């Protein structure tokens, strides 16, 4: 693989990472959000795979494949099951009808996109010292990781549905994973596996929580949990 192809591959992956994050902010259809998340997972997996092919490192490619399997396939599938479940017919009385849309986000779509833009600019601004430190293809993509982290937090903070918040959390984690990979140029497989397992468990628990909230209150608005404070 020649240098140009490598640079182009890395940049495309990083660009897709950011683009999918922005699109998640824009779309309010839950199924679409999960699909975008799957795309982001694939883009994230592309980073180590391209890097591994360029440097002919089997371990890094292995990490990439693991990421692809988990973030591109397994996690979106878990979330899709939550969205797609039509329960009532088979599960007796209408315990919960899954919400298809993020009905009323805390912040409107246009304002959200504005905030996203601001966060992206901030991310690029605060990571300048890191980029200046070593101007490799990898570290050039670090601002994107930070932007994805911040956008993930934004999605979590501005959405009401437990499922959209889970998507936000997974975006945040995608950002962290990519930052870790880009900054250290190759996280050991063991560390990556451990972190991935954590994320899988968190997603399963959050999915369970969303279902419970929905079963109790009829919708999955986490604002209903407000009463739980001390």
């Amino acid at each position, binding site marked *: 693989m020649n240098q140009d192809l490598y640079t182009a591959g890395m940049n495309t992956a990083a660009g897709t990472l950011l683009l999918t994050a922005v699109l998640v902010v824009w779309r309010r259809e839950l199924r679409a959000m999960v699909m975008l998340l799957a795309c982001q997972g694939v883009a994230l997996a592309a980073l180590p795979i391209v890097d591994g092919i360029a440097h002919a490192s089997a371990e890094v490619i292995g990490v990439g494949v693991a990421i692809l399997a988990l973030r591109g396939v397994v996690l979106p599938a878990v979330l899709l099951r939550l969205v797609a479940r039509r329960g009532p017919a088979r599960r007796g009385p209408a315990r919960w009808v899954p919400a298809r849309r993020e009905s009323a986000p805390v912040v409107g779509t246009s304002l959200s996109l504005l905030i996203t833009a601001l966060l992206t600019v901030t991310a690029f601004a605060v990571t300048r010292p890191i980029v200046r430190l070593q101007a490799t293809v990898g570290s050039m993509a670090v601002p994107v990781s930070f932007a994805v*982290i911040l956008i993930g937090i934004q999605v979590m*903070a*501005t959405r009401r549905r437990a499922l959209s918040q889970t998507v936000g959390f997974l975006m945040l984690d995608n950002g962290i994973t990519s930052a870790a990979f880009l900054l250290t140029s190759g996280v050991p497989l063991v560390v990556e596996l451990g972190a991935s397992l954590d994320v899988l468990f968190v997603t399963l628990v959050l999915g369970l929580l969303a279902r419970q909230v929905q079963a109790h209150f009829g919708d999955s608005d986490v*604002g209903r949990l407000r009463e*739980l404070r001390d």
Partner: protein
Amino acid sequence: MTMIRTALRPDTDAAGSEPQASHDARQGHEARSAAAAAWGGAATSLVGLAGVVCGIVALAGRSWSLSLDGLFPMVGVQLELTPLGGLFMLLTGAVAVIVGIYSAGYTRAGHLGGFPLAVMPIFVATMLLVPAAGSVPTFLLMWELMAVSSMMLVLAGHRRAEVRSAGVYYAVLTHLGFMAILLGLLLLSAATGTTRFAEISFAIGDVGHGARTVIFVLTLLGFGSKAGLLPLHAWLPRAHAESPSPASALMSAAMVTLGVYGIVRIDLDILGPGPRWWGLVMLAVGAVSALFGVLQASVATDLKRLLAFSTTENMGLVLVALGAAALLTSSGMRDVAALALAAGLLHLLVHGSFKMLAFLAAGSVQNATGLRDLDRLGGLARRMPVTTALFGVAALGAAGLPVGAGFVSEWLLLQSLIHRPAAGDTLMALTMPLAIGVVALSVGVGVVTMVKAFGVGFLARPRTDEAAHAREAGAPMLLAMALAALVCTVLALVPAALDPALRALGRTLPVPVATLGGVVIGPAGGLGSIAPAVLAAGMASAVILAVALSRIGSRRRPPAQSAAPLWACGADGLTSRMEYTASSFAQPMQRVFRGVLRPEADLSVVRAAGSAYDVEQMAYRERPTDAVEAHLYRPVLRLVRAVAGWVRRAHTGSVQLYLVYGGVGLLIVLVLAR
């Protein structure tokens, strides 16, 4: 219904109304719990025995150290036997041996579940490892393990609200203390650049004066909280009163003394006798604690609470001795300082022995009657003669009267304080008489307290049915208490038995330690010396002589004519309502020290229906309050609560808002860290 009741309250004796099947099940359960008790007690005793052996080996001068680097990440665990640590291991181990025997019998009565029984050996082991710790991280680890395991013992009866409240007090104060110790010791190892105590002692010379002072203040505060000294003492009366009696005995006789170990180890041994005001601060903290403790004890009506306050008093006296030793050393009077330090250490050991005995006897009373309130006890001397006699030994020791265990050490402490200060030494000339006054006053009030505990609790007539139907404790409990009484008596009559230990300490500590010598004990020069064994022999022979003479005399006298009851002024029909109660006995004390104790009184009047003057019922309650709690703790708690109230406003319960907080926090960090 009966089943449920007995299941919830295993200590109620409901056997009479039970069906046969559950009676059998109960017997099986009892047999199992007795076996568990025997194993738990044996484990505690064995761990204690190991501690005694290690302590003796350390005091014999055999140094031994062990480094387990893999046990704890990064820093490892270092153990080291020193003579000073050996003294405390000996004390803790001896207490644990006796308490282990006791708890084997105590548990059988159903007061101690399997859980505290299992925790007790662990607690003893951690207490033994604290003085064996050779480095700062090990010390802190063991200290915290000790706090946690004792916490479990305190919470053994967590179904009662008082126990939970005691647990909260203990957790908060012990962790405040731990914070202070943690900061102090971290500063110490940061200033010296090493975590090993042995290396710290070498490197301490390079540490600046300011750092030393901060370390001194922090460690004194932290270790003082464990020793029950003011101002972080409030956990002690609660935790000691509410935990099961064997645990109270372990805590009061062994764990509390480890606070003093910390003070001696860090503040006297490692930091060395510092500037004069250090000694003065220790003296003042000790004096205030001693007075406060003994005054609170004198008005307490709960037997275990009384004993707990007495612990604060005795630790205060020990600290007075340590402070006096530091002051006298800095004034160049090393002989007198040595005597003060020996008196303090002796008092520590003696207090361990008599306080253990007192708590064990209180536990046996509680076991037999279910009561701790002195106002409802009484008349136990007839029903429980052995326990009464043994509690008498403990009370005599705590009162500091001759032949009692506490007498020699308090006498020596007074002797070390009474001396002629060097000419022109105004500080000493002012301090020492005040200290003498404090010691004398607290010993005097201590006598009143112990007379109250013994007289009201054990003599006279029983005030309640529970007290009237008390049964003597079982053999293991009596055996343990007898052993404790034996230790008390040996320490009271032959304190010179401790001389080898004191000599070993004197070789290692920077402050000199006097030895007690042979039969005659006292300051060099002979003035003010005493011979406790001779004193005891004299008293015993005087009593025997008096009894013999009165026997001879009574042969000649005609038999008594009167048939009227004794002690009743010829009148009949005395009831227990006419007796002194603990409250009424303490009333004069409460009056005299009203300004300090500030009793809280409330009067509730129930008027008869439709009348402004006709009173149906009146209730008057008066109880002493803790001035330190009222004026130091409450303002702090109010402040914390107010601040927490402000913080609470930010907590709306909205998940989104919390996420915004997190995100904004991250952004701020990112922007600032650029």
